């Protein structure tokens, strides 16, 4: 009998940490090799971790919502035989300060660097209900009987600054102990939602994108009457084994052609190296609403897929994303993203770029409306396209030109399939 210590592996692309989604086992359970033991949340994916050995669970390290650094002990198994790796576990105690054992030196370095931060995050998680503020503000609030949890904080990470408290008091903010405040609180029925899991990832990525990327947004309307007619024709004439086409596969096909003409738009930015990586292939992310929030499954090599294959891909990936079953590689590596709120209406969006990409295409609702065409008022199916680009790497002129090019393809859809 020996012990096998399972450390959180790098789940892909230099992952340095992951959040425990759900344990599928408990201490004492007998598990077989490859049984699913835990769901780990990395970036945007719930990744199922299969058991590396057959054995009994001796201990689990961490609880749902905890962030675990790559290389830290995750599970200890009691196993038969001598294949145990207890020696390693003794050498690397279950503490973030200890150097995680990682196969590649580079990964090891990364993991070591982030470990203290991981701990800090984990601590924040466990005391998330606490407001962030300075001891002095806390003391002032206590003295005046003010419940800081209702004071809006304008500092970093929502920290309540001294002036926030002053403003709160000046604005009639009342001591929590007063009748009014209590009543307000009762009728307000504030629910606390921990910012964890996918939501935390979204929050972080969104604020990073808005903080770091100078967004440039450009909107134009597109006459998709012909485009829609083509789609309806294709649907009406498709064979039984083919899926029904939505706008998206055709749009992606148009986008694939557009990106060939505008390579600066199909790119990602490596901030560390200060390098823009222009992709020959189109890896298109499809912003997908799930119960956990926004996820972006990715169709890789979209330029090489038929519209039917794209339709299949979209269906499969969006379902996987919604069910939380998307694989890691299906949620990473996009070179540009399409976001569509069309179903809900709306005429314009200012989409937020899915960093490290440099552009995002927003599709608005298609509506029949009167337009002037050749001097006559006619009813056409019109759709607005709202694009945002990283103004550091895509100039306004190029962005506009790219939209006009795309618009041309969509208004004369046959050209999508005509080689340059």
């Amino acid at each position, binding site marked *: 009998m020996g012990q096998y210590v399972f450390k959180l592996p790098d789940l892909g692309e230099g992952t340095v940490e992951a959040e425990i989604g759900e344990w599928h086992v408990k201490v004492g359970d007998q598990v077989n090799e490859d049984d699913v033991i835990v769901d780990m949340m990395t970036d945007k994916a719930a990744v199922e971790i299969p058991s590396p050995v057959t054995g009994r669970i001796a201990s689990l390290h961490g609880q749902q919502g905890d962030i675990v650094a790559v290389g830290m002990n995750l599970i200890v198994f009691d196993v038969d035989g001598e294949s145990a790796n207890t020696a390693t576990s003794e050498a690397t105690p279950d503490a973030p300060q200890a150097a995680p054992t990682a196969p590649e030196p580079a990964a090891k370095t990364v993991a070591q660097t982030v470990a203290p931060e991981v701990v800090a995050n984990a601590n924040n998680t466990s005391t998330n209900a606490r407001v962030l503020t*300075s*001891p*002095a*503000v*806390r*003391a002032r609030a206590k003295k005046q009987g003010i419940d800081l949890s209702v004071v809006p904080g304008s*500092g970093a990470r929502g920290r309540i*600054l*001294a*002036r926030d408290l002053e403003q709160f008091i000046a604005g009639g903010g009342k001591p929590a102990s007063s009748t009014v405040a209590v009543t307000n609180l009762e009728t307000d029925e504030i629910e606390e939602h921990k910012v964890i899991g996918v939501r935390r990832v979204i929050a972080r990525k969104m604020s990073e994108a808005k903080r770091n990327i100078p967004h440039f947004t450009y909107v134009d309307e597109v006459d998709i009457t012909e485009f829609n007619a083509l789609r309806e024709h294709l649907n009406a004439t498709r064979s039984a084994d083919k899926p029904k086409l939505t706008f998206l596969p055709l749009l992606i096909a148009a986008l694939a052609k557009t990106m060939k003409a505008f390579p600066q738009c199909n790119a990602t930015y490596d901030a560390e190296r200060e390098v823009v990586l222009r992709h020959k292939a189109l890896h298109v992310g499809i912003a997908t609403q799930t119960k956990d929030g926004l996820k972006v499954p990715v169709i890789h090599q979209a330029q090489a897929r038929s519209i039917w294959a794209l339709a299949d891909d979209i269906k499969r990936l969006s379902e996987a994303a919604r069910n939380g079953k998307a694989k890691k590689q299906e949620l990473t590596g996009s070179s540009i993203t399409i976001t569509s709120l069309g179903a809900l209406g709306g005429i314009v969006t200012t989409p937020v770029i899915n960093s490290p990409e440099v552009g995002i295409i927003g599709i608005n609702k298609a509506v029949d409306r009167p337009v002037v065409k050749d001097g006559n008022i006619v009813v056409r199916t019109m759709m607005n396209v709202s694009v945002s680009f990283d103004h550091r790497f895509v100039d306004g002129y190029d962005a506009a030109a790219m939209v006009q090019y795309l618009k041309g393809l969509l208004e004369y859809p046959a050209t999508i399939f005509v080689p340059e």
Partner: protein
Amino acid sequence: MAKMNMIQALNSAMDIAMDRDPSVVVMGEDVGYFGGVFRCTDGLQRKYGEHRCIDTPIAEGGIIGTAIGMGVNGLRPVAEIQFADYIYPGFDQVVSELARLRYRSAGDFYAPVTIRTPCGGGIRGGQTHSQSPEGIFAHVSGIQVVMPSNPYDAKGLLLASIESDDPVVFFEPKRIYNGPFDGDPDKPAVGWSSHPQGEVPEGYYTVPLGQANVVREGNDVTIVTYGTMVHVAEAAARAADVDAEIIDVRSLQPLDLETLTTSVNKTGRCVIAHEATRFSGYGAELSASIQEHCFYALEAPIQRVTGWDTPYPHAFEWDYFPGQKRIIAALEAALED
């Protein structure tokens, strides 16, 4: 009143102490005929003779060990260790003997020894002539630790140290022996003569141990510092146009915590600056104590400005030295909303 640099002020203190009390003896390497490598004991042997200003072998353990014996036998030795970097061979005599003699003998024996030693960098001394080991000694139970920042305090504190029946390790920041130093090595050196605290009474006076000095009053942030860094802190506060209250600790043990906490309770913000390495340094003690007493007054985390946790590198002296830039960055952090 006379214009004195720190060397002259220290010399004056020893002169007066020897004159007033025949039990005071000065001892150390090169201190006698030559008058000390930094000239602090110049003329004392001529005036008081070889029995009271004693040249010693190069053996710090021997200097401190014999000083203890002399102290037990009724003398009041002022032992010079030529550089604080050389004090370690005598460390056992300081820590295990000098510091604990009164305690272990329940007050029946004590040795009123003052150990003077130049410390700190900024003189191109490399890693063996630049250290600031005050934190190591302040950590030892039973040792008083002092570091002046100007000639007036140097003289008054040294006289108080010599008169104390308890041992004192008296650190002399050698970069400011001849003039205040604001941390900018490229500026021409200035002497003490134009500095208000270069005005030193020629006669006897003491600056009591255990009293910090508010060097400059201010409202927005408190800078707690000592030694050379007092001047760097003043310059940094001026450069950053910050209304900082600057406190010169002067006496690290006993510590005048009250002056420190009164100030931080007023300003709500605190920067601690010393030249020594950071990890487990004296600044950590200051930070912890201030936090314990001022927690609910703190508007921002207490900042520490220190040398790096490396030896003092010869070629990179000014990269190591915690200059104005490092203090200004800490002031900015301490002054965050």
